[in-house]
């Protein structure tokens, strides 16, 4: 190859390439978002028309359109929060997998822990009452975990305590036979 061509060819390519750069820059900042990137957001959203179907597995044409919308928004550089907000604005709060933490929706998050704590408190109070009313003094009797120790019998209950460790029970059964 002649030296002139060796220099000219890359120069030509360079100029040619430079001419294209603006076009390339305008058409896409990033490569098309993959299905996985779309699904990562879609699976956090629910289909606005189907019943309780997440958007990443919904088979309808409408859902296909919405996934493509997500793809386009991702290509434009929108963030996950932007996309979710867009969906909420357009389709309502029910597309989110949890109620947004606004207004009356706070109740969803607050009621269960409050109820649980209330229950725990009631339980605790009940324990205290029972302990206080208990007639037998608490001897702190040692209940170690080896077999053959004294089985617990309920105070005057007459209920046969079959919770004795096995060796004990077997002995007694043998005696009865």
């Amino acid at each position, binding site marked *: 190859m002649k030296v002139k061509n060796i220099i000219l060819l890359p120069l030509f390519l360079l100029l040619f390439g430079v001419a294209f750069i603006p076009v390339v820059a305008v058409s896409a900042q990033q490569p098309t978002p993959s299905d996985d990137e779309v*699904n990562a957001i879609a699976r956090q959203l629910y289909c606005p028309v189907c019943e309780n179907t997440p958007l990443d597995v919904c088979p309808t044409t409408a859902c296909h359109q919405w996934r493509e919308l997500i793809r386009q928004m991702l290509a434009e550089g929108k963030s996950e929060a932007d996309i979710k907000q867009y969906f909420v604005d357009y389709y309502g709060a029910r597309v989110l997998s949890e109620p947004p933490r606004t207004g009356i929706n706070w109740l969803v998050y607050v*009621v269960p822990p409050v109820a649980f704590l209330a229950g725990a408190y009631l339980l605790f109070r009940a*324990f205290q009452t029972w302990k206080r009313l208990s007639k037998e003094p*608490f001897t702190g009797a040692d209940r170690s975990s080896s077999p053959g120790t004294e089985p617990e019998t*309920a105070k005057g209950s007459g209920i046969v*305590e079959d919770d004795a460790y096995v060796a004990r029970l077997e002995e007694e059964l043998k005696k009865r036979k």
Partner: protein
Amino acid sequence: MLAQFGFGVFALTFMLAIFCVGAAVVGYFDKSDRWVEAARRGMLLTFPLITLGVLTLAYLLVTGHYELQYVYSVTSNEMPLYLKITALWGGQAGSLVLWSWLMSAFASAITLRKWERDRDLLPWVVVVTSITLAFFLSLTILYENPFARWWQTAGGDFVPRMFAPSGGIPVSPADGQGLNPLLRHPGMIIHPPMLYLGFVAFVIPFAFAIAALVTGRSDDRWIRLTRRWTLIAWLFLSLGLVLGMRWAYDVLGWGGYWAWDPVEISAFMPWLTGTAFLHSVMIQEKRGMFKQWNMLLIILTYALVIFGTFLTRSGVLSSVHAFAQSAIGPMFFAFIGITFVTSVALLIYRWKDLHAEVEMHSLFSREALFLLNNLLFMGVLIVCFWGVIFPLISELVTGQKVTVGPPFYQRANGPLFGALMAIMGIAPLSAWGRSTFKTLGRALWKPSIPSAIVPVVLAILGVHNWIALIGFALVAFVIFVTLFEFWRGVHSRQNNQNENFLVALWQLAGRNRRRYGGYLIHLSMVVMAIGILGIELFQTTTQKTLAVGEEIQIADYTLRFDSLAQFPYTDGRIVTRAALSVFQGVQYLGNLYPRYDYYPASGQPMTIAGVRSTLADDLYVVLVNWENVSSAQAPFKVYHNPLVNWLWIGSLMFIFGFLVAAWPERDEERWEDKK
């Protein structure tokens, strides 16, 4: 003709059930044994009657009497025989019939036992079971009649009616719509009967509880009598739930088994209170405590059974599961109103008579831990219940619909289930009545050490998810404690009885069935937890459109798209099937054939994933049928589900544990008589 006969039989059974209620009430207040006996026999008679109706319906389904609306909607000519039979519960009307049939079966079984010692409870047991039966039969007769047939009215509309509308001409279609393809799966075939068995079986302890409340008895005889029913109900409900999970995993094609869908939760809630009840009655039997609480639990369980059945069928909630909305909503509402109000009123009325016999001494005793167990189950129940009804509240108050979905439930229930696992490990080491922090601590440190090693090992192996580390540590803890308990008992027998290991194990379990059966069930629960932790925390998924020859990668697997074919199948469906080769590194592991079946009659496709299952993980491939599919290229969605098969293994284990726990003991009747 047959349809009229079937309808007549159901109507007759309904009237018989009403008679049973009346006769039992009369017999109780008049103290007349004759009336009570009449009620009992009436109850027994309902079973053969309903069976006759069920057999009639089955016959009509199998022989393709498409002039009946129900037969038309769930069967078609191309369906195989076994599917036509299972179509009996494939739709709303038929599933309600199944409910009634099972209710009648169990109520008859309970009336067959010897009643001499508990004669005073009998009338009210009959009343409660009969009212429940009558309610479900009334739904069948008045609203969801499987024997209604198609008529063409003068206006040209097609309407289903039992009796001819004015100017109506009978219509006989030549073929039916066929069963929804999604329901043609073995799991779906047994899932409804299992669930209903569980629901219906819980009505029995409830009936006895109400009987005890009405008759003013405060002992625990009703619990002893229904102990086995409670276990059976628990088993069937658990199996029903697991089968539903398996069906969702196999057929719904989203690589998961539980979506926290309101209908799923409706079936889960009675399981929660049922399990709490199962544990709590043990305390009542052992220590005479918590009578009020146990009454409340069984009433709640029954209430949740009815409530759950209502939610799934009334159209009040939106769900993928929901049956089409029908007029039975208001009927259910009335029934719920009456039963809830009556049960609560009764319980309040008798509250002070249900006082405990022995008091609690220690916060670390087994009773206290059982109470904590109940608190945790109630916690999960409140989360689930609130999450299910909140969208309803939100819509009524603000007019806006919201979704309460998996993130809410997972975040709230995760720690609660973790705490429950911890208690499963601690409780066997505690003692009834007395336990101090020291004694319990001393018992605990031994299994805690190996349990603490597990997360360290996992962390070294690369697992850094702290939820997983805690979860697996708890799993290990429960396994160690349970195995330790077994070993301790066997060891003591070996020493004292000179038995060899296997005989000792057999004898040990044989003489303490409930305890060791219970331990086996706990073991099975944590084995299931292994599967759940694996798939929930470590599932990965990827989707890509592949041309023939292209590959897709997930975890350390590579899948190559080889070919795609579309062909009709013998029963008329069109099958589109892809073939993929699976590699791990360079090692060829086999082929997978994900496909979807299109049923022209119903216009619905059913996705069947190609799954490669091992103990370590599942490789789950779906042929995505909502994007463009051709023989040159197709979109695939692949899921990698680590450890998921332990979920199914664990569920098999709890069947075994149940059998050990529930098997009748030889000496049991003698113990009973001694009291």
